[in-house]
C-alpha cells in the first residue's frame, strides 16, 4: 500500500483565466445542482428499528422461546439491515468509529452512531447475545446457509476462537490511528448486500458462505471482533436463553432433567454439558496444572506484547502518512539531490509510528491475555450440573429449545 501524496505539485483548482461572461441575450446562468443526502430521519428510523428488533429478539429468546419466530425475525433483519440498507452503518463497524473518536476528537461522532455501537452491548448485558441471534445481518446471511453443520473439534474451536481477539485488537489499532477501517474493508458479506464489490470481496464472501454450510456461522465464531465485546457483556447477563424452561423457583433452566437430547443440537458447540465426576478424581493434578498455567501466563503476555512491538513497524507501514514518508525518503536517497522531505511530513509519520509502537504492543498484550485466559479456563474445573448454553458462546438462536422434551410437554 503506497500512497504518494503531493509528490507532484498540482495546479490550483480554481483559477480565473476567463472572466464570467455578460450575456446580451439575457441568458441566466444555471445554479449548480447539489443533491442532498438522504434525509436526517432515515438514521433515526434505522436506529429505532434496530432497537425494536433487539427488543423482539430478547422477547423471543427469553419469553416466547420460539425458533420459528427467531428465524422470521432474522430473515426480516437480513432483508432490511442487509439488502435494503446495504449493511452500512452496522454495530460491528461502529466499533471503529468509536475507537477513532476516542483517540481523535476531530473525528465526527454523531450520537446515533454511538447508539448503534452501544445498544447490542446493553441488550447483551441484560439478555445475552440476542443481537447475534436475530438482528445482525452478517450473522443472518450465514444462518440461512448453515444446512449441514458439523461439530468442530474442541481444540480447533479454542484455537480459532482466539482469532477474534487479535482481529478486535488490530481493528481498534487501525481505526484509532486513523489508518483504515479494516472491519469494513475486509467485510466478506457487504458485497452481497450491495450486489456489487471487488471480485476478491465477493469471492471471500462466497468462500465463507460455502464454509458456512458445514461450519455454522464461521465469521461470527472465528472472526467477528464485535463478538468479543458481546461475549464479555453476555457472560454477566442478567437473564439468558435457557434450554429447558425455568422452574418456578426462578433458577434458569432449572427444569433440565439431564436427558442429553439437546447435547448435539447446537450448531455452534455452545452447549455446556453437566460436569462428570472425573474432575473430582484429578483434583490434585488439576491444581498443579492451574498453578503451572498461572505461572506461565505472565510470560505469554510478555512474549505477545514484545511480538506486537516488533510488528509495529510493518503495521505502521500500512498507514498512508508513513508510506508517503517512506516513498519520499527513498526518492531523496535515489536522486542524491537535496529533495529533503519537509519536516512536517516527517514529524507526522513519526507521530503515527509512535502511536503504532504503543498500540501494537498493547494489542500484543491484549492477545497474550486472551491466550493466557483460554489456557487458564482449560485448567479450571467447569461448573454446572445441567445442560445449559455457554453464555459467552451462545448466539441466542433458540434452536436448542425445540430439542428439550420438557418444552414439548408444556406446550
Amino acid at each position, binding site marked *: 500500500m503506497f*500512497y504518494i501524496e503531493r509528490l507532484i505539485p498540482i495546479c490550483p483548482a*480554481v483559477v480565473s483565466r476567463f472572466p464570467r461572461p455578460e450575456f*446580451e441575450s439575457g441568458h441566466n446562468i444555471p445554479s449548480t445542482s447539489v443533491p442532498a*443526502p438522504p434525509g436526517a430521519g432515515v438514521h433515526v428510523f434505522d436506529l429505532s428499528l434496530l432497537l425494536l428488533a433487539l427488543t423482539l429478539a430478547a422477547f423471543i429468546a427469553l419469553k416466547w422461546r420460539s425458533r420459528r419466530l427467531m428465524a422470521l425475525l432474522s430473515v426480516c433483519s437480513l432483508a432490511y439491515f442487509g439488502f435494503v440498507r446495504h449493511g452500512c452503518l452496522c454495530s460491528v*463497524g461502529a466499533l471503529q468509529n468509536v475507537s477513532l473518536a476516542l483517540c481523535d476528537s476531530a473525528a*465526527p461522532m454523531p450520537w446515533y452512531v454511538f447508539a448503534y455501537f452501544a445498544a447490542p452491548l446493553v441488550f447483551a448485558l441484560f439478555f445475552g447475545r440476542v443481537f447475534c441471534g436475530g438482528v445482525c445481518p452478517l450473522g443472518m446471511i450465514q444462518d440461512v446457509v448453515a444446512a449441514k453443520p458439523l461439530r468442530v473439534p474442541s481444540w480447533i474451536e479454542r484455537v480459532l476462537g482466539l482469532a477474534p481477539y487479535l482481529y478486535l485488537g488490530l481493528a481498534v489499532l487501525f481505526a484509532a490511528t486513523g489508518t483504515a477501517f479494516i472491519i469494513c474493508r475486509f467485510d466478506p458479506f457487504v458485497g452481497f448486500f450491495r450486489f456489487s464489490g471487488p471480485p476478491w470481496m465477493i469471492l471471500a464472501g462466497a468462500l465463507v458462505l460455502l464454509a458456512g454450510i458445514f461450519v455454522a456461522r464461521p465469521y461470527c465464531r472465528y472472526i467477528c471482533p464485535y463478538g468479543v465485546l458481546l461475549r464479555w457483556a453476555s457472560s454477566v447477563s442478567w437473564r439468558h436463553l435457557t434450554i429447558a424452561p425455568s422452574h418456578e423457583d426462578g433458577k434458569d433452566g432449572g427444569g433440565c432433567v439431564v436427558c442429553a437430547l439437546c447435547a448435539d443440537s447446537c450448531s455452534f458447540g455452545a452447549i455446556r454439558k453437566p460436569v462428570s465426576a472425573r474432575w473430582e478424581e484429578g483434583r490434585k493434578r488439576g491444581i498443579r496444572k492451574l498453578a503451572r498455567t498461572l505461572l506461565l501466563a505472565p510470560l505469554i503476555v510478555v512474549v505477545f506484547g514484545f511480538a506486537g512491538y516488533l510488528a509495529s513497524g510493518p503495521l505502521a507501514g500500512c498507514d498512508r502518512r508513513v508510506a508517503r514518508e517512506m516513498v519520499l525518503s527513498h526518492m531523496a536517497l535515489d536522486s542524491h539531490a537535496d529533495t529533503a522531505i519537509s519536516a512536517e511530513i516527517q514529524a507526522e509519520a513519526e507521530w503515527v509510528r509512535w502511536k503504532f509502537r504503543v498500540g501494537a504492543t498493547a494489542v500484543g498484550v491484549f492477545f497474550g491475555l486472551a491466550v493466557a485466559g483460554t489456557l487458564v479456563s482449560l485448567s479450571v474445573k467447569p461448573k454446572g450440573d445441567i445442560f445449559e448454553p455457554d453464555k459467552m458462546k451462545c448466539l441466542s438462536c433458540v434452536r436448542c429449545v425445540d430439542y428439550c422434551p420438557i418444552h414439548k410437554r408444556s406446550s
Partner: protein
Amino acid sequence: MDNKTTKKSDRRDFLGWMARGAGLLALGAGGFLFSKRSRGWKNTSRFVWQIDPAKCSQCGACATNCVIAPSAVKCTHVFSRCGYCDLCGGYFQPGAKTLDTSAQNALCPTGAIKRKFIEPPYYEYTIDEKLCVACGKCVKGCQSFGNGSLILQVRHDLCLNCDECAIAAACPENAFRKVPATSPAILG
C-alpha cells in the same frame, strides 16, 4: 443447606450486578466523553463523504474504486465560475481541429458533456450524470485551460455513504473528507 444456596446465589447476583453496572458505566462514560468533545454529536443527519477540489488531482481512482458501478462520484459543473469558452479545455481534446460536437474532438470518453450555443462567442456545457463515469479527464482539462469550473464531487443521491469510503481509502491525495450532511458539497 437452603441458607447456603441463597447466600451463594445472593453473592453471585451481587457480583453480576456489579459487572453489569461496570459495563453500563463504561458505555455511559464513553457517551458522555463523546458528547463533550467529539465533532457533530448532536447531528441527527450523518456526516457524508466529499471531495475537496483543491486537493483532487484527477488521478482516475474515483472511476474505479467506488463500491457501486458506475461511481457515485460525478463531474459537477460550477456554472458561476465557467467562462463559457468556445474553446473549452474540458470539452475538446488538446489540438482539436474543429470546434464542434463531433466525437473525435471530444475529450469525454462517454460523451457526457453537452455543449449548447448561447450567443457568440459563448457556449454552455452541462453534464449528463447518467453517462459520467468520474474519470476526471474534463476536470483536468478545465484546470489546465480554463477556470476550474468542472470539479469532481460525490453525488449524495447515488452515494451509499459507506463507513469506510473505498475511494477515500484509495485516494492518493487524501482529498476525501467527511462533511456535515447539511452542507454536502465543496464547490471550491
